[in-house]
């Protein structure tokens, strides 16, 4: 079994901490993993992505081929759409709905919404609102990870919770609890969304 994930967002939004938690969980579950990151110039407020590949078998390429990506996980709606040619025919998009507008020609939100609705498997979730609701506005990325866990078949959600505990352990128990709560809120939202 394999799952290929593209993590997308804008430089500074925190996609790499999502990758770190998934990586930790994958290591504990003895999966093979490859994760290509973007560093350097592109991090300065530009679009960023990370190719994350998980598999029970050895993985060859560090990059995901076009048409093979099982999940696009994005902290920003336009960034979710940037990688469509990579998405498998039956692949999922899990995206934050709050736009990050730092360019003058950012598209109309209605156009973005229409484009997302055109696709068969989309979980659109306002992670910023949910993070605020549970009073941990800085854990929006863990809300998104929670939503992702609902369709990330290769990893057990409990392994992801363990991953959060290990990754955030040195920041103290309160931070760990906030992030777990954010994860659970995202997970619950997505489960409810999928049931509908």
């Amino acid at each position, binding site marked *: 079994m394999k799952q290929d994930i593209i993590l997308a967002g804008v430089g500074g939004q925190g996609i790499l901490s999502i990758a770190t938690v998934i990586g930790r969980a994958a290591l504990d579950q003895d999966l093979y993993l490859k994760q*290509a990151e973007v560093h350097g110039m592109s991090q300065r407020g530009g679009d960023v992505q990370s*190719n994350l590949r998980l598999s029970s078998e050895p993985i060859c390429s560090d990059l995901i081929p*076009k048409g093979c990506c099982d999940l696009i996980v994005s902290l920003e709606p336009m960034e979710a759409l940037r990688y469509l040619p990579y998405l498998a025919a039956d692949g999922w998009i899990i995206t934050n709905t709050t736009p990050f507008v730092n360019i003058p020609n950012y598209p109309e939100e209605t156009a973005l919404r229409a484009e997302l609705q055109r696709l068969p498997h989309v979980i659109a979730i306002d992670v910023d609102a949910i993070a605020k609701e549970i009073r941990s506005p800085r854990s929006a990325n863990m809300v998104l990870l929670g939503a992702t866990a609902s369709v990330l078949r290769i990893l057990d959600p409990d392994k992801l919770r363990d991953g959060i505990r290990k990754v955030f352990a040195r920041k103290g128990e309160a931070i760990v609890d906030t992030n777990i709560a954010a994860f659970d809120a995202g997970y619950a939202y997505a489960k409810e969304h999928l049931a509908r």
Partner: protein
Amino acid sequence: MAEKHLLLGDEALALGALHAGLSGVYAYPGTPSTEITEFIQNHPLTRERNIHCDWSSNEKTAMEAALGVSYCGKRALVCMKHVGMNVCADGFMGAAMTGANGGLVVTACDDPSMHSSQNEQDSRFYADFAMIPCFEPSSQQETYAMVRHAFDFSEQYKIPVLMRLTTRMAHSRAVVETGGLRDQNGLSFPENPRQWVLLPVNAKVRNEALIADHARFAETAEASPFNRLADGPDKSLGIIACGIAYNYLMENFPDGCPYPVLKVSQYPFPAGLARRLAAQCRTLLVLEEGQPLVETRLKGVFDSGITIKGRLDGTLPRAGELTPDCVRAALGLPDLPQHEASQVTVPRPPALCQGCGHRDFYTALNQVLKDYPTARVFSDIGCYTLGWLAPFHAFHTCVEMGASVTMSTGAAHSGVWPSVAVIGDSTFTHSGMTGLLDAVNSNADITLCISDNLTTGMTGGQDSAGTGRLESICLGLGVAPEHLRTIVPLPKNYPDMEKTIREEIEYHGVSVIICRRECIQTARRHAAKKQ
């Protein structure tokens, strides 16, 4: 005891070097190589073993310091991005002539597709040029093992070796099994001291020896555990896959490649293995990340009766990094079903951070230069290069480290006025200081603006070599004290900043304006640490 770690290619190399008995790492930050040195700086073994790990001023000083370590019999690692090879080329070529005593591994991280670079030069050419071996790993696990092998090779054959990574190897994580800690070397000096004095009388002898050694390096590549000829039933095509290109090939054949494949991760290029492949296959496809080095050699000038396919005949794109997709197309396999690209998305280029001092500096500079329509502005490599983009459009050139100072000097010599140079603090101490000395000596009419954010910003905030001493450096180089000015780039200071810039443009000689405010990224980190 084997341990499992999730490591970037850069980190696998760093840990491999630590476990191989490293005594010092010498480097200047540069994407995608920076994380090698940072990993070593943060590793407990570094303190335990007193391993040198401070940043060097530039790649040349790094290379030469490492050669000094090697001279003393200890193991040294030099790390840089590909264009750093140009800066250290003198030391690098010299090191091939002296040879190594303690293991000396030079690591160049190439950036095909120019994700964060000004060109996509291929460092394998440098190894070839210097007649030294080159290692090019295809996986993070191989990287870890290979660096140990490279150090052993360097000591056994008394020669520096080059490790070449490319962006996708340097910046991709995978699980790596590690184990086996080697002791550091003690002091020992070269057996052949004449070789380290490159007077012509010695160098001529050494050159003959190096040419003979190069033939031995080629023999080791034929038998290398990192080079492998695998058979395949379909002889209509033979494939040569170098470095990580091998992964893109195998990605496209999950059930095994039907064609014979020569995997190459150690150079000089194993010509004997390639001949064995060509004896079975009359058409060869060369997959190599970067420039078509192997392909050009195989193609040659005269018709050998073997068809060579690759970047030069359009089978693969002529430039840019390889992907599983372009390799798939080169293999003649059909595209996988995929969604069409979205028509709604627009590019999101990188930008200077909000609140960054470079922004305030460019705002003031642009305001002043409105009154000087003949002005030319020569900029340099760093975060501030983003000032070329909207909304600043602040300068005319950006070429390579330090070129702002020297190009503005040349422009002033040619009659351009005002001739303004813009350089960051770290780039200035990397390669700008000697240029400033030239400007002073010729009394060039330039205004040099050092946008000092007290760090090496673009690569993530590493120490900058001249922090706190820029004024004394400029004075020492002969800049007149009354034309060495300091300003603080903040919106409230615009009037003062503009006045200073205007005054120094109007001065006909060398002026230096140091525009100093801490990088907001490092300032935030420092504030968080204090809490």
